[in-house]
């Protein structure tokens, strides 16, 4: 969980940073998308590097979901009879929403790829510029799309709030001082990431990016 999760966090930061290119200008954003596809050329044919990354991501996502499923099945088996008085959450809320949060994120990623990568679910369609798809997506009259993005990105934030800290612990973090540091790192990274992701839809919504 920790290793595959760490890879996904790296991707999320790279992706979020790339998204911010939209503030430089719409055509710069499109050039960035073009550049991503040109990475590795001429060593590799066009878009090969991108596909290598995609395969890497899929493997990481696959391992992450596989481990999460195995843990969930074990947890169900380990407590066949539930408590009549529903236990109140005493640990962290983020820790207790990892499973459902993860499911929401997967659904979001599927929608998101069909929307912004392939364009199937985007008003602009697949042949348009990536920046046009983003602008069309978060237009004020499509507020429900923006809302869905916001909810999903916040879910990612919660997921990482616990996930990043938990990864430190799984990899052997054990001092009290280190625990405070790991908790702080997890919180700061999650908040920064959420802010980076949400800045784009809000910029489009408010007309800052047009």
């Amino acid at each position, binding site marked *: *969980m920790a290793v595959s999760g760490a890879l996904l966090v790296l991707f999320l930061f790279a992706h979020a940073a790339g998204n911010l290119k939209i503030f430089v200008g719409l055509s710069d954003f499109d050039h960035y998308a073009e550049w991503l596809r040109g990475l590795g050329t001429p060593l590799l044919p066009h878009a090969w590097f991108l596909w290598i990354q995609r395969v890497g991501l899929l493997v990481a996502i696959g391992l992450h979901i596989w481990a999460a499923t*195995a*843990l969930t099945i*074990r*947890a169900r*088996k*380990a*407590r*066949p*009879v*539930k*408590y*009549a*008085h*529903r*236990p*109140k*959450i*005493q*640990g*962290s809320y983020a*820790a*207790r929403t*990892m499973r459902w949060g993860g499911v929401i994120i997967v659904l979001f990623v599927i929608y998101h790829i069909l929307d912004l990568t392939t364009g199937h679910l985007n008003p602009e369609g697949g042949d348009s510029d990536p920046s046009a798809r983003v602008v069309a997506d978060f237009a004020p009259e499509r507020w429900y799309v923006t809302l869905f993005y916001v909810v999903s990105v916040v879910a990612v934030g919660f997921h990482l709030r*616990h996930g990043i*800290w*938990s990864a*430190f*612990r*799984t*990899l*052997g*973090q*054990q*001092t*009290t001082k280190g*625990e405070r540091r790991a908790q702080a790192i997890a919180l700061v990274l999650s908040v920064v990431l959420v802010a980076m992701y949400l800045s784009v839809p809000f910029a489009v919504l408010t007309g800052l990016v047009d």
Partner: protein
Amino acid sequence: MDIKVRVWRQAGPSAAGKMVTYDVKGISPDASFLEMIDVLNETLILNGDDPIAFDHDCREGICGMCSMVINGVAHGPEKATTTCQLHMRKFKDGDVIDVEPWRAAAFPVIKDLVVDRTPLDKIIQAGGYITAPTGTAPDAHATPVPKKDADAAFEAATCIGCGACVAACPNGSSMLFTAAKIAHLGLMPQGQPERDSRVIDMLQAQDDAGFGGCTNAGECTTVCPKGIPMSLIGRLNSDYRKAISKR
């Protein structure tokens, strides 16, 4: 105090159980939770009913027997306190209090609130020991131990094996218990020879017993009557990583 308790009644290991409500009247706020159940049991016996079976021994917070989930919280609402050390003044007159046994596949119910915690012993048998020469007791200072390590080992050694961590864990995992035992031995020079095999074998025994896997959810330490810190789980993970990389 007049209260109502809803208690899990189950006649035997394979019998079906259910929550049964009882009125308990005239309880002193200074009575312990177990004394409240004693009073209730006396009434049940006078009425010719079967008294509620529950585990208890020392009644002073050190044996780890008094396993009860009270209103959804293992060992009840007071932090770092066993059920036997919990007093009725923590509740209000007229409260309805739910009392259930530890819920875990590895801890089958024997009767009512009594569960079988043998799997924790199985984990200890798998590696919770050191090898030492027998015979005359060694000199107390023959093997020096730094004060810091001795204190940390002692803190871990306060785990009373009650199983509340398992009862509270959303994964039904006994990782806090196992981590406490591994830290308490692994921090001492005497615990070094078996340090690698200990963590591997104890985790294997834990998995074999049907406990769930730890996801660092952190519920365990909030209910632990001895306040065993979750950081010991990080220590266990680190020991485990080192041990498997040597195999």
